[in-house]
């Protein structure tokens, strides 16, 4: 049987990818373009194809609720990503100590991620409610001065939401980190033991820098979660008290479904998309740059090998 020509092989691959590519182009890119088109119209309940320029965008940034939503998302993003990475990593290190019942602990830590936040968010809401949950229980034990009412406070409600969100997502980060830790060569640990380096130092100076890819993966997953944060807010506070925990995704859904203002909702989603692209562009650029560099290095090495052999 003669070997297939590369072109034909590529053609088959392309053919296999075509449905997916068509879906991405038609459904995703098409929807994005459609949203952008709607965002410069005066559509309310139904899409209208007139053109009103950037009126919706002006209105969007005049809206106190939208700017507040963006601020809340930024605050949530920073707290949530840092919280998840730190706690997830520490949990992974803890489990990596070959503790007994590792399987059970792993399941326990990962379990929150398997449950829908619509249900667990409600439990968090009750737990944090000053009249029902933690605060009243502790007060019932005799500590009358105990106060934990973050969920009803304007300035702390985002932190309360972040706690619940971190609780849910840090198990996933732990799983990723644990995989990374287990991928580290055992001989490295032995060498460190022989040199008498304390374990915390090995983690901090050797293991952590080697875990770059794990952190990268976790970061991307968490960052996506930040931009689309919706369910945790709806389940816990519905954006309240007042507007204190409003987020962009909720602004979009409210305008799309409840307030019959699909043009404004489209403008908001366009702004959100552009924000994400602006944040991701440097990262993509760095990645592309790095892989090009790697390729160059690899090529140089391949080219250098015979020469090096000759020298030997």
């Amino acid at each position, binding site marked *: 049987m003669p070997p297939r020509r590369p072109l034909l092989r590529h053609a088959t691959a392309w053919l296999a990818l075509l449905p997916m590519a068509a879906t991405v182009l038609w459904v995703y890119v098409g929807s994005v373009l459609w949203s952008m088109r709607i965002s410069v119209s005066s559509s*309310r*309940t*139904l*899409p209208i194809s007139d053109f009103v320029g950037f009126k919706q965008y002006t*209105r969007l940034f*005049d809206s*106190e*609720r939208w700017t507040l939503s963006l601020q809340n998302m930024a605050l949530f993003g920073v707290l949530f990503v840092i919280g998840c990475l730190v706690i997830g990593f520490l949990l992974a290190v803890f489990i990596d100590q070959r503790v007994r019942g590792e399987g059970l602990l792993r399941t326990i830590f990962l379990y929150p991620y398997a449950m829908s936040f619509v249900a667990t968010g409600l439990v968090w*809401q009750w737990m944090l*409610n*000053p*009249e*029902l949950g933690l605060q009243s229980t502790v007060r019932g034990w005799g500590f009358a001065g105990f106060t934990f*009412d973050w*969920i*009803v406070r*304007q300035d702390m409600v985002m932190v309360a939401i972040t706690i619940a969100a971190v609780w849910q997502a840090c198990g996933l980060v732990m799983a990723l980190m644990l995989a990374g830790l287990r991928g580290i060569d055992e001989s490295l640990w032995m060498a460190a033991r022989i040199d008498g380096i304390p374990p915390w130092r090995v983690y901090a100076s050797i293991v952590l820098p080697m875990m770059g890819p794990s952190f990268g993966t976790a970061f991307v997953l968490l960052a996506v979660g930040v931009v689309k944060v919706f369910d945790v807010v709806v389940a*816990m*506070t*519905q*954006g*309240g*008290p*007042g*507007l*204190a925990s409003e987020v962009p995704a909720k602004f979009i859904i*409210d*305008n799309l*479904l*409840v*307030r*019959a*203002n699909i043009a*404004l909702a489209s403008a908001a989603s366009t702004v959100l998309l552009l924000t994400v692209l602006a944040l991701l562009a440097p990262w993509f650029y760095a990645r592309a740059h790095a892989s090009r560099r790697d390729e160059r290095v690899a090529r140089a090495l391949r080219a250098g090998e015979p020469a090096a052999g000759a020298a030997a």
Partner: protein
Amino acid sequence: MIHKTRFTRLGLALTLAFGVATFAHAQANRAEVLHWWTSGGESAAVKELANAYTQAGGTWVDSAIAGGEQARAAAVNRMVGGTPPTAAQFNTSKQFLDLIDSGLLNNVDEVAAKNNWDKILPAPILNSIKIKGHFYAVPVDIHMPAWFWYSKAAFAKAGIAAEPKTPDEFFADLDKLKAAGIVPLAFGGQPWQEKITFYAWLAHVGGPDMYMKLYRDKDAAMVQGPQFKAFLASFKRLHNYVDAGSPNRNWNDATAMVISGKAGVQIMGDWAKGEFATAHQTAGKEFGCFPGFGPKSPYLVAGDVFVFPKTTDAAQVKSQQLLATVFTSPATQVAFSNKKGSIPIRTDVDVKGLDMCAQMGVAIMKDVSRQLPTPEMLITPDLEGSLQDVITKFWNTNESVDDAAKSMAAALKN
């Protein structure tokens, strides 16, 4: 051989498909009704509508989608997509105005003329469903979104002898409840509940004139005037009487506080009756209700309607007209209202079967001067949402009355 089988199969499939289609046509007056009545009491109520339609010779196809927003979005999507249901539920409001403007709805002028809707329907509802001289929706119920529900036990404990007749008396009663160690106002701090409290308070304290100037005339100058600011301060005063756990509380949890006597009063729509009924409490016995302060208090009118998506299919049009006729007939109205907790859309019905609060409501509805449309009937969902943002911020933060008035004026101009 293989090909033959395939063709046979295709033929079978085609026969089946057409067979089903023919069968569907054979169903008399088939009507697919899209609604969001999914809770226990609600589905019992919609079953009354279905039964009445079946008895009138129709075939009811139930299409329930949980959640008003989702159901309305589904209805709009199906209309735009060209496969609309026969009838779709909306609130008595401006929610379906865009659909009328885009020519997506059929009117039911014939049914309206035959049944004299102009005479029997209350003005706020007529104004909502009759657009440019055509009837585009059939009303099925009247809900009053802002009754005052109070626990008789809590009132007795606080030494309150009679229902308050003025806002000042109401504040005095709230103080008494507070002194007795009872949560004075059972409050669910979700934006829509804050909004209901706001417009109820506006109707009762600000008065119908101020209410209409805001919601009908969108008078930005009035909003910045001293009288409206005094009203805003009065509204915010209510915040002194809620408990720390109120933010984001569900309305039925707040009702439960009144049921248990833990709280004194709740301002909530007549759907709260269902909660009292489930707890085996009777109006006038364990709990009381009053629609406002004094014998001339305004009565807010809200409710549900069905609209009829545009179709040229004569059979569908016939079904739509039959639905409109059946929904508004006196017998259906009483049976439906009893299950739903609402009051009938017409006053010429037998009220004996209704509970005390509903009977009070029907009696009040006979006095046209007391009827007041809800904001949903007067302003677009968009403006309503913007105002809601202003209200919830004012209620939950230390924002000054002046700033709140300014934000409200800005929302009105937008």
